[in-house]
């Protein structure tokens, strides 16, 4: 099956998967870079976004409403989680942070299971993106093509926020040296809250945008969390461009290897991560900063 048509198709699959991973990873990496918290509930937030969108879709029948609801809901979840729990953990050892976020993720998953059962739920693609598109060399689900575009726009928005606004400047400065930012008289507390909200929002947005591709279930965040960590490690912890690059690389590695032998797709992904860690321990675009 090593044909050009298959190769190009797989490159395409890699792009679609990579774009999604990039978006989820950027949320994770911004939170880690700024707050120093490795958020193990990030996968559960991805799942929550899907369910919030699903509920909104059930009531409104509109994809747009579902996306907005899923995204906003996660922004609120992020803010509440930061104010009520996370801010008390910034000064505590990393293992406490890992445990509290891990615990929260279990709570989120089981709450969803309690209300919605383990049975998969489907959010249909909007009508204009339904069906299949003939790309000449292959047929491709139109919605998956649309996802690449939607995610690209979302990443650009994130880029603009991070690199072209005052908030972004402070966030990036916080990644480099949060003590200095604090001593310059900036209200780091409020910035931290916003960053957590934005990170959660990225996961929630990805969750609902992905729902028509992969029907949602309570456990869906678990597998994606592992892949997201690999992406962040490859791209460089705390680096937004790194998350995007890492996402695309991971997506392509999985899909290209699958063409040759699907059983090795994840082996190759972890092999690549190991290689990156050996050659560039900070990741491909990792910045020197928070240790």
């Amino acid at each position, binding site marked *: *099956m090593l*044909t050009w*048509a*298959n190769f190009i*198709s*797989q490159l395409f*699959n*890699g792009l*679609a*998967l990579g774009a999604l991973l990039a978006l989820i990873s950027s949320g994770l990496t911004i939170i880690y870079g700024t707050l120093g918290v490795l958020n193990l509930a990030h996968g559960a937030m991805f799942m929550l976004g899907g369910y919030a969108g699903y509920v909104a879709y059930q009531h409104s029948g509109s994809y747009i409403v579902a996306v907005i609801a899923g995204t906003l809901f996660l922004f609120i979840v992020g803010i509440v989680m930061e104010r009520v729990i996370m801010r008390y953990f910034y000064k505590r050892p990393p293992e406490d942070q890992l445990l509290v976020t891990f615990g929260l993720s279990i709570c989120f*998953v089981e709450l969803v*299971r309690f209300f919605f*059962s*383990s*049975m*998969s739920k*489907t959010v249909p693609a909007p009508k204009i993106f339904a069906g*299949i598109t003939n790309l000449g060399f*292959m*047929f*491709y*689900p139109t*919605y*998956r093509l649309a996802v690449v575009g939607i995610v690209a726009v979302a990443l650009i928005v994130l880029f603009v926020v991070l690199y072209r606004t005052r908030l972004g400047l402070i966030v990036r400065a916080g990644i480099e040296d949060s003590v200095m930012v604090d001593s310059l008289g900036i209200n780091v507390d409020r910035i931290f809250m916003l960053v957590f909200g934005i990170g959660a929002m990225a996961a929630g947005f990805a969750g609902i945008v992905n729902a028509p*591709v*992969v*029907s949602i*279930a*309570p*456990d*869906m965040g*678990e*597998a*994606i969390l592992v892949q997201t960590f690999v992406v962040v490690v490859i791209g460089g912890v705390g680096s937004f461009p790194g998350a995007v690059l890492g996402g695309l690389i991971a997506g392509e590695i*999985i*899909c290209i290897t*699958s*063409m040759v032998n*699907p*059983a090795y*797709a*994840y082996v190759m992904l972890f092999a690549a991560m190991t290689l990156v860690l050996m050659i560039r321990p900070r990741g491909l675009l990792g910045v020197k900063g928070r240790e």
Partner: protein
Amino acid sequence: MKDDKLKDAGRRQVLKAGTLLGAGLAAPSLLLPETAFAAKHPPIGTWPAGSEGHTVYIGATVPRTGAYAVQGEDELKGMMLAVEHMNEGHPLMRKLAPRLKKGVLGKKVELLVSDSGAKPNNAVQDQQRFITENKIVLMTGSTSSAVAVALNKLAQREKVLYAVAISGSNDTTGKDCSRYSFRQCFYGQTAASAIGPVLIKNFGKNRKAAFMTPDYTYGHTVTKSVNDYLSAHGGWTMVTNQVSPLGTSDFSSYLTNIANSGAEFIINVNWGRDAVLSIQQAKQFGLTPKMGMVIPYQIPFLAKEVGPELVEGVYAATDFWWTLEDKYPLAKMFVEAFDKKYGYKPEWGANNAYMQFAIWARMVEEARTFYPPSVIKTYEKGETFDSTVGKVHFRAADHQLVRPVVIVRGKKPSDMRNKEDYWEVMEVVPGAPLMQKPDAFGCKLGDYT
């Protein structure tokens, strides 16, 4: 002969107890048979400790999280119904286990449950805990053959009986079989031999098939059995075999390979949520209905999750489907009791779990003891008994139940009589001719003691 001895032992014990009672020492009569056995046999596994009280425990490790959570939850419902029926002496339970009155050998049965997440190490750890702390008399639960073969080994080592729950791998009663475990449900080889002729008859010879295989013992053995059958009897070719890890969510690259393989059929061995997602995505990629979809090992709730449109015309082999109630009186009793308690029609995971418990109760009651080697020998007698799919019996050489395989086809949504009428039963294929020779998959049962 042995039974007579046992009865004698029981009689002697009654006399002994009478004397004790006379002396003012109350010995509850329900404790007698076990005491009788204890006098004859050294302790083994959790016996006799596990059955000396008024309650016996069964340890169940089912997946309540992960890719098989939906099926695990269903299995659990079947188990809970069976326990309730054993304790109250329900008419259905008494048809399946005629000697049973209330409780098994008069003892109340309680179910201990843990979440395995379909992971073998979780299941083994939890069962080990149940054995040590609760002295369980029976283990159950799987829904992944990886768990089933791990528990087979634990059962043999700990000398505690194991009633295999859902497990489709040939290895479970093949190379990884165990003296202490028994399987009720169908498996790769019988599924392949039952669905193979149907596929060749309906779709002709010399067709090209793409396989989708989950990467563990279940997937590999089912794929091999189906492919062996179709290539040997129908000249079908496997043009690609897409092996994916359990818990895959994005099947795009696998489906792209299939799209480029020239396949005419997708034989989808994926299970649980993996099956749901791969079937939905095959439709998204436009592979189905252009390519035919075949499901050799049916998944409970599949049609409910993907919707009837996606399973329309799909052939599947299964263990039980609720409309069999029209054919088998015991199936009718089971479907009614389950529907009454849970408010929906049972799927095959629940049926398998219920039947496994009922069969165990039958064997313990026949053996008149919980002493594991005696219970095993009762299973191994291979007596024919009535079940929810007609007459069945156990094969002594590999502890596999000889039972029919049910071939179903997805109904057109407009033909469904009610919202749960997803599948039409095409054929109930008798079990014995479908099976391999007992030693063909390398089964060597371990020791009794």
